[in-house]
């Protein structure tokens, strides 16, 4: 992707069958990631379309055997930060995310609706939101997320931690007789997290 000289005149010769199959298989994850960034499935589909076109055109720079999802996420994220972010910021609500009042399977203490959760998630700073999605929802390692975002793993770790604290606050989970659970609660210096 970063090596234009490797780009063939037409992408087709370097597009292998497994690459195409891989793209197809990643579409649901690309959409879910994109919708988590911009808050709208309609905008997400535009982003995914752009990502697929770029991926196809740059197929020659994808190293077979490496992580296709991470490569695609990097393309999608760069596209979002380059052209789409301003639209995303205008989305005030969870347009198109079709979250009926589905209760999240939680534990007995903490109940929440998916829609409420999505509102809170979209209220987070973008960099905390994307870190939470990659690490907390998709199970990527801090190192994998760091590669996609082009930052240090420690930065991802800190964004996840701050994002979790902020979500807990927005969702009212932090208020239940836990004075220590403020903005900084899940920090490593917190007595709660110090084990």
């Amino acid at each position, binding site marked *: 992707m970063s090596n234009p000289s490797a780009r063939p005149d037409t992408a087709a010769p370097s*597009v292998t069958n497994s690459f195409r199959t891989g793209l197809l298989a990643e579409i649901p994850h690309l959409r879910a990631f994109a919708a988590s960034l911009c808050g709208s499935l309609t905008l997400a589909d535009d982003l995914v*379309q752009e990502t697929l076109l770029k991926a196809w055109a740059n197929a020659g720079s994808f190293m077979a055997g490496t992580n296709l999802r991470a490569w695609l996420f990097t393309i999608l994220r760069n596209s979002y930060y380059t052209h789409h972010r301003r639209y995303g910021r205008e989305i005030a609500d969870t347009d198109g995310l079709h979250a009926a009042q589905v209760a999240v399977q939680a534990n007995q203490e903490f109940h929440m609706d998916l829609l409420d959760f999505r509102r809170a998630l979209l209220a987070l700073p973008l960099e905390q939101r994307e870190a939470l999605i990659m690490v907390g929802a998709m199970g990527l390692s801090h190192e994998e997320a760091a590669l996609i975002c082009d930052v240090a793993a420690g930065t991802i770790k800190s964004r996840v931690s701050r994002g979790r604290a902020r979500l807990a606050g927005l*969702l009212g989970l932090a208020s239940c007789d836990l004075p220590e659970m403020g903005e900084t609660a899940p920090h490593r210096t917190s007595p709660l997290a110090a084990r």
Partner: protein
Amino acid sequence: MSNRNAGPPADRGSNHDDPRTDVNGRIQDTIGRALQAHYQALVLEPIPDRLIDLLAELEAGALSDE
């Protein structure tokens, strides 16, 4: 995908004997589940035809000038 116990060690106390840490752990667990529910619901959304068609067109070389 991570399981529900996954989480960065820095924000999850592993000592569940401490009731305060335990509450914190359950809050983090709830957030973790909600994140996964949010993401999984989106993954399961039907894929629009235009994206499938796009790949087919690319494959057919219709957009190879891109």
